[in-house]
């Protein structure tokens, strides 16, 4: 870790002013990812602006029946919040599927959105990486790529976004509220993260000097028929090889509405509205789920070590939709997949 200066932000406007005044500065909140990256010399900010004391820790009901979650609400506080447990259990389940109790006690909502990929080459500064050093090349494409993307990758980058929470937020149609030098704006969750293209150094569509202030959930929480199914190399405390957030609204045996998003497969949480549309109006059965899974994976592409993820994702989607249809969400403590 290199030496750096440390300052505190007094309010959101002050945070934006401070970061705009120093292009090599970074915000710090929970620090669970940033400090780690700084220890690896992947991130080398000259200044850290501490935003952890800003008043962004509340969870409030919105006028239209949704929830507004302050950017500094800790992951554990969010997962165990009564309104999340009652109305958005898929989000709580996804959060509890990620990291460890200690990290969830530290990590913030906004920081979860902004965490970087766990691609081993991104972390290893001795190897080329277009995300870390644009133009240096991608070591993963012809290297060890077992954990890498099968959807939406580019020749420049096949890294995945590591978050569990964001997969549920994508499925739930969340909005991200940000403040920048030009004022406030809201970004649809599907537009917040981006695909790598030729500029994999950019993980999100945040503009320079913007700060995430809140994440807003719409009223619909799919609290009856949902699951978050995460498949990984260890039973706990590991990133997803493939994860699936699946939610259904049923009318008898017929699917009235559906949400389907995947983690561990792309540079962003992968929500597929075409696959969702294919589920609507059909019977909630194996044939329907298999058809939707095939549709979602229509453009999937494997590399030397991760082709297994395509079949894993296909079976995972079918299983997750079946769990959602049964109203039997995946337990995050008993890891038996039923």
């Amino acid at each position, binding site marked *: 870790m290199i030496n750096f200066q*440390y300052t505190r932000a007094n309010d959101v406007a002050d945070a934006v002013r401070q970061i705009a005044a120093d292009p090599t500065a970074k915000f710090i909140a929970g*620090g*669970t990812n940033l400090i780690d990256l700084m220890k690896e010399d992947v991130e080398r900010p000259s200044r850290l602006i501490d935003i952890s004391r800003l008043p962004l820790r509340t969870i409030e009901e919105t006028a239209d029946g949704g929830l507004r979650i302050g950017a500094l609400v800790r992951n554990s506080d969010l997962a165990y919040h009564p309104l999340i447990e009652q109305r958005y259990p898929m989000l709580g389940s996804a959060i509890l599927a990620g990291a460890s109790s*200690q990290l969830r*006690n530290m990590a913030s909502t906004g920081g979860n959105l902004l965490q970087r990929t766990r691609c081993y080459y991104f972390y290893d500064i001795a190897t080329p990486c277009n995300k870390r050093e644009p133009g240096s090349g991608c070591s993963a494409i012809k290297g060890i790529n077992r954990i890498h993307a099968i959807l939406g990758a580019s020749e420049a980058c096949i890294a995945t976004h590591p978050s569990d929470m964001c997969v549920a937020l994508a499925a739930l149609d969340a909005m991200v509220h940000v403040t920048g030098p030009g004022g406030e704006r809201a970004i649809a969750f599907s537009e917040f993260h981006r695909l790598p293209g030729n500029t994999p150094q950019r993980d999100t569509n945040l503009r320079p000097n913007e700060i995430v202030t809140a994440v807003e959930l719409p009223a619909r929480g799919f609290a009856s028929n949902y699951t978050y199914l995460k498949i990984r190399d260890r039973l706990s405390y590991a990133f997803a090889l493939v994860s699936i957030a699946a939610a259904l609204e049923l009318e008898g045996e017929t699917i009235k509405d559906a949400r389907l998003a995947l983690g561990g497969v792309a540079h962003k949480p992968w929500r597929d509205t075409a696959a969702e549309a294919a589920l609507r109006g059909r019977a909630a059965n194996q044939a329907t789920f298999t058809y939707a899974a095939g549709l979602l994976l229509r453009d999937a592409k494997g590399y030397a070590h991760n082709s297994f993820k395509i079949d894993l994702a296909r079976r995972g989607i079918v299983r997750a939709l079946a769990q959602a249809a049964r109203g039997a969400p995946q337990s995050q403590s008993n890891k038996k997949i039923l």
Partner: protein
Amino acid sequence: MPRSSTAQPITDTIPVPEKTPMVLNVNGVEMQLKVAPWTTLLDALRDHLDLTGTKKGCDHGQCGACTVLVDGRRINSCLTLAVMTDGAKVITIEGLATNGALHALQQAFIDHDAFQCGYCTPGQICSAAGLIAEGKAKSAEEIRELMSGNICRCGAYPHIVAAIQQAMGQS
């Protein structure tokens, strides 16, 4: 560690900032200290306050050996900048016993032989104290899941779970 010649050299062009004075309440005692911005809470405890019970394992938040309680919540002190905890209440393994009597978890770890080398034990015990305070784990399965941030390379997990169950029964 050798660095690639293609990587940018790490320069020292950034001036060394003044150390920041800060206050920590550690195990019930108010401590004044001065830390550099990059000093982690783990290093502040071990190197500034000589509280070496808290262990440095991976130093990357992956093993849990550095777990302490900050304002009652278990966290990884290796990924926490000390300066950001200014004014906080910290409990380390040294602060769990009261008047010479072992904390229920410390006694339970002895009763169940819940360690071999002992290096992960302070983190396991502080984490278990946080777990019990959170009140989310009831079954052995839930204890295992919510203790997954603490790695024991001796593999004492079954005894650790038994020790935590014993202490839970007493709390």
